[in-house]
């Protein structure tokens, strides 16, 4: 259960600032696709357009042929999204929050309970399931964000900076969890961790200043050296663009 994604000349401007400049991409069903790039490259902007949170200034993204611009609710029904620095309700308990999100996703009764139990199990949330989100470590908060994103078994799973701010042990554990999603969803992984992208992704797109700077498969990256070398060659080491 996964979906194909096509971005056709997607652009986003904030006044005179061009955050995304005519970006075109095709992501195959079931693929784990990495989005990398320096700060302000347009990664999160693209993700926010794909999830329907922002409207593209031009172009469109289609999920299995369904336009995000015209039918965003249909797209959102097939999409799970764990955003950067998980934005969750700190005053909710983990189980209450997951029940709430499952209800928003249209689940009810035994299906809802089953989905919540499965998500808790897949993300290893059993030890904290009755705790308030506000008191959880960053690692567990990330897991809760991922758990709510997979409740409705989405065709597309969008994950923005899942390991930022985590300690090495938490990063390793979260990567293991992300690797488990392979083959079950089309995964879009937006990350600053080049090593993470190398480990997990089938293909990686390097964005720079809102444009596609490079697109490479895992094999191409390996044969050409490393993702770090590709990054340095295309973007440089002291690069920062305006947001």
């Amino acid at each position, binding site marked *: 259960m996964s979906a194909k994604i096509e971005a056709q000349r997607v652009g986003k401007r904030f006044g005179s600032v061009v955050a995304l400049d005519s970006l075109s991409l095709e992501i195959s069903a079931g693929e784990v696709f990495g989005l990398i790039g320096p700060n302000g490259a347009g990664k999160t902007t693209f993700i926010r357009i794909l999830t329907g949170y922002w*409207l593209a200034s031009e172009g469109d993204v289609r999920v299995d042929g369904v336009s995000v611009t015209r039918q965003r609710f249909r797209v*959102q*029904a097939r999409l799970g999204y764990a955003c950067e620095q998980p*934005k969750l309700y700190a005053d909710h308990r983990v189980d209450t929050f997951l029940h709430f999100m499952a*209800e*928003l996703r249209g689940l009810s009764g035994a299906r809802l309970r089953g989905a919540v139990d499965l998500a808790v199990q897949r993300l290893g949330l059993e030890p904290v399931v009755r705790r308030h989100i506000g008191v959880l470590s960053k690692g567990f908060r990330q897991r809760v964000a991922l758990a709510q994103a997979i409740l409705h078994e989405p065709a597309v799973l969008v994950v923005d900076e899942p390991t930022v701010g985590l300690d090495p042990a938490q990063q390793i554990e979260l990567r293991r969890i992300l690797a488990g999603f392979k083959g079950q969803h089309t995964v879009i992984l937006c990350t600053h961790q080049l090593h993470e992208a190398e480990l997990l992704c089938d293909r990686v797109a390097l964005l720079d200043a809102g444009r596609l700077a490079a697109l490479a498969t895992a094999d191409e990256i390996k044969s050409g050296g490393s993702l770090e070398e590709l990054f340095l060659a295309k973007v440089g080491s002291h690069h920062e663009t305006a947001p």
Partner: protein
Amino acid sequence: MIRRLWALARKELRQLFASPIAYVVLTVYVALTGIYFFQHLVSYNQLLFVYQSEGLTAGGFDQGTVPSQINVLNEVFVPSADDFGLFLLVVLPLVTMRVFAEERANGTDELLLTSGLRPFEVALAKHGVTYFFVLLLLAGSAIYPAVVVLRAGLGFEHLVALYSGQLLYGCAVASIGLACSAFTSSQIVAAVLGYAIPFVLLDFAWLSNTVSESAAALLREVALLSHYGSFARGVIELRHVVYFAGITALGWLASVASLELSRAR
């Protein structure tokens, strides 16, 4: 859709009553309305005493005769309704300022608006829960007027009219506050606007001498107070109901528009 709305409404209720603001506002409102209602009741009783007092016969009053305009409706219900309305104006922005602004400041609006919820559903649940809170406030303050209605043999319809007016007026004020909250991520800005707009709309009498007759008439029609008074006298007029319902609907539409506009930032 109903299930999603109900889930969101429960979340809003949980958040509303997780903070002390809801309890403080409830307590303060019920206490203030009780004190002021009691004060009007005491004044009314003193007035009755004055009129019925033997010692005043020489002063021009007929002993034991109370003018018809001195009644519990005019002396207790009408001034109390004015006070209650003012208190609603003071306490409601404290509740509405958080509703949308906090969601935007914490970034949880991204969670809601990418989960398949329509902006009108988000606004509907948030507005609905706030109107329910207005209802709770009014229910808490209805005890004293209810006792007076029962004891004075006034007729239950007066209480219904008074509280229908307050509910409509409260929902309109809350809706303005919610719309202000929807357009900002700062709760302070939401509160300031939530106070400023209803206070400006409250009464344009101060302007009536400086504008033309037709403009003054128009301003009277726009003012909140012009539509609020008749309810306390036990009259429910359709035009006043439509006015308050219209403001409430406009506030909700503004909230929906704000959520939609935020996509095109």
